């Protein structure tokens, strides 16, 4: 039995028994959707519908419907792609990296954050597939034999690396998430009172029974998947950063990009997890499982990764000056003082100043402040990608080519629609799937719950 030091705060509050965990997590699945769920769902589904309209318009009319031009050929499309992929990284970090570091506080948040990862990567993939000009030929991204002499993809290109990386990341995250869901589906199946629920969750649970051998294999598979997902998380956003870093565009061609992007991804991802979980825990009454401690821990990670992003900014400026390369220096002068200065300063205030506020433990444990900050961080990270992409492209080496970029209503609609897609999927997840990893959370009731700590303290006092 793992004995916890009493100095640690309990991870499960409210005198919850193992049976309580099953009840609390299965109840939202077994009851009718609430009014607030319907309200949120109708809102998101409307945005999703708008996404369908705007994407259909783009596919029908062509990319001319967007504001891209010969100089700024990547605008909101790639900004949004990188934004969504970055958001997705937190889920894998929570499930994989925190597992390897034996951080038990991940257990009540890993399921929802992995779901977030999957939905975020779906949104990212939607941008990737809609921006390629001829979206009815997406299979051209794959090295398939063909009748063009067998014209293969260019493996030297980070865009091809992206294809492999993002598809591996998506499918591996999907199986990691699904495998973890199997024992929980089994719990819902066994409790099911209606024949439909019994059928569907019976199907989804693949006939799981928690025998010792099954759990042994399950634990090993989780550990190995975690061990593989960790380098995957790091490599995927590194490869995404190389879409920029391997070019010669001023402001892009810098070796700080891989660690900078990975830290930025974790930064924005955790902010999105905070946004989702603060609402979820309130609406679904899961405050005993997703406690202030969890919010605090996630804020610490936001603070650390936000600080790394800040250091990366400083590195960029320093090297732009120290290298003596006038194009690189101009790229940064233009960012701060050129026509997109407002985006740059929004980015700076949201990303550099805000995480430093989390040094205060009072602010770290304040739920309202955290919620507000999580939105601020995500806005800041969106502006970061926008600033990197657009300000570097719109004024590169040849002044005669300098242009401006203005997104059209179609691009704005696709972005809003992708947020609708994300929340629609997430709301469906909260309605039909267990939001917390039940079977995993049950493992810490006897070591890290409030009542166990109370008992341990009592025993301690008797010595």
């Amino acid at each position, binding site marked *: 039995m*793992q004995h916890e030091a009493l100095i640690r705060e309990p991870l499960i509050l409210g005198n919850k*028994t*193992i*049976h309580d965990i*099953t009840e609390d997590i299965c109840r939202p699945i077994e009851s009718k959707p609430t009014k607030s769920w319907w309200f949120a769902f109708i809102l998101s589904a409307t945005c999703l519908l708008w996404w369908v309209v705007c994407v259909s318009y783009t596919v029908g009319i062509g990319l001319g419907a967007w504001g891209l031009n010969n100089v700024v050929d990547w605008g909101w499309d790639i900004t949004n792609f990188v934004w969504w992929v970055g958001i997705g990284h937190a889920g894998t970090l929570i499930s994989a990296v925190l597992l390897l570091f034996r951080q038990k506080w991940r257990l009540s948040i890993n399921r929802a954050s992995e779901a977030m990862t999957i939905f975020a990567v779906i949104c990212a993939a939607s941008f990737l597939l809609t921006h390629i000009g001829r979206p009815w030929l997406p299979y051209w991204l794959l090295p398939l034999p063909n009748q063009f002499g*067998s014209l*293969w*993809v*260019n*493996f*030297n290109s*980070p865009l*091809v*690396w992206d294809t*492999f*990386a993002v*598809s*591996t990341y998506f*499918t*591996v995250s999907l*199986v990691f998430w699904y*495998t973890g869901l*199997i*024992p929980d589906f*089994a*719990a819902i*199946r*066994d*409790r099911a009172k209606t024949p439909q629920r019994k059928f569907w969750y*019976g*199907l*989804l649970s*693949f*006939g*799981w*029974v*928690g*025998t*010792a*051998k*099954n*759990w*042994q*294999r*399950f634990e*090993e*598979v989780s550990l*190995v*998947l975690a061990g*593989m997902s960790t*380098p*995957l998380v790091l*490599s995927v956003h590194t*490869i995404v950063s190389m879409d920029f870093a391997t070019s010669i565009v001023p402001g892009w061609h810098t070796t700080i990009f891989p660690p900078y992007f990975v830290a930025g991804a974790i930064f924005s991802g955790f902010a999105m997890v905070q946004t989702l979980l603060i609402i979820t825990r309130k609406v679904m009454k899961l405050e005993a499982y997703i406690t202030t401690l969890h919010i605090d821990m996630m804020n610490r990670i936001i603070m650390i990764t936000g600080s790394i992003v800040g250091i990366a900014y400083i590195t960029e400026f320093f090297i732009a000056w120290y290298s003596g390369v006038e194009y690189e220096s101009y790229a940064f002068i233009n960012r701060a003082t050129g026509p997109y200065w407002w985006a740059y300063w929004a980015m700076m205030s949201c990303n550099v100043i805000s995480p430093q506020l989390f040094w205060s433990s009072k602010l770290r444990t304040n739920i309202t402040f955290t919620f507000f900050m999580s939105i601020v961080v995500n806005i800041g990270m969106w502006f970061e990608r926008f600033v990197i992409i657009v300000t570097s492209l719109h004024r590169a080496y040849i002044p005669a080519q300098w242009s401006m970029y203005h997104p059209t209503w179609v691009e704005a609609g696709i972005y809003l629609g992708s947020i609708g897609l994300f929340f629609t999927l997430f709301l469906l997840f909260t309605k039909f799937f267990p939001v917390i990893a*039940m*079977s*995993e959370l*049950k*493992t810490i009731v*006897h070591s890290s719950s409030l009542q166990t700590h109370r008992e341990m303290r009592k025993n301690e006092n008797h010595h």
Partner: protein
Amino acid sequence: MSKFIFGIFSDEEKVMHSIAPLRAKGVVIKDVISPFPIHGMDHALGLARTRISICSFLYGMTGFGLAILMTWYMMISDWPMDIGGKPNWYFYQNVPAFIPVIFESTIFCAAHGMVITFYLRSKLLPGVTAYTPDVRMTDDKIIMKVEVTDAASEQSASALLREFGAEEVKEYGK
């Protein structure tokens, strides 16, 4: 004729510590079914180590080899092209560019190969019916499955299970 009785426990510690003494007293423990993984249960039951991670490694090596073969064939052997003057006469000259793809392919094959093997070996497939006669198996109780051959052994096993902390001893139909 062998049938099974099931001892129902609430505390996983009790279950873990009772396995060895129960076996010493002649109780044939076949399995322990729990709603959550119990650390050390496989060791306590004497289960062999799972070889699934070895499988994963082998699948990973397969992915590694396939990706090397693919990138060599496509970029060096079949249709090498002058892309920005990058050297492509030999595989080793161009291999730094291929590392991301080779890495991703390794992880892809390792992960999916392992998970598919896990599902097949544990017989986890859509449509498989689970034998969970008691809803508490996936809720909050730990259930020890004991094999008994006749009424006498059933009596003694039952009594021993209760002695070691079982709250109930039940028999479920097939």
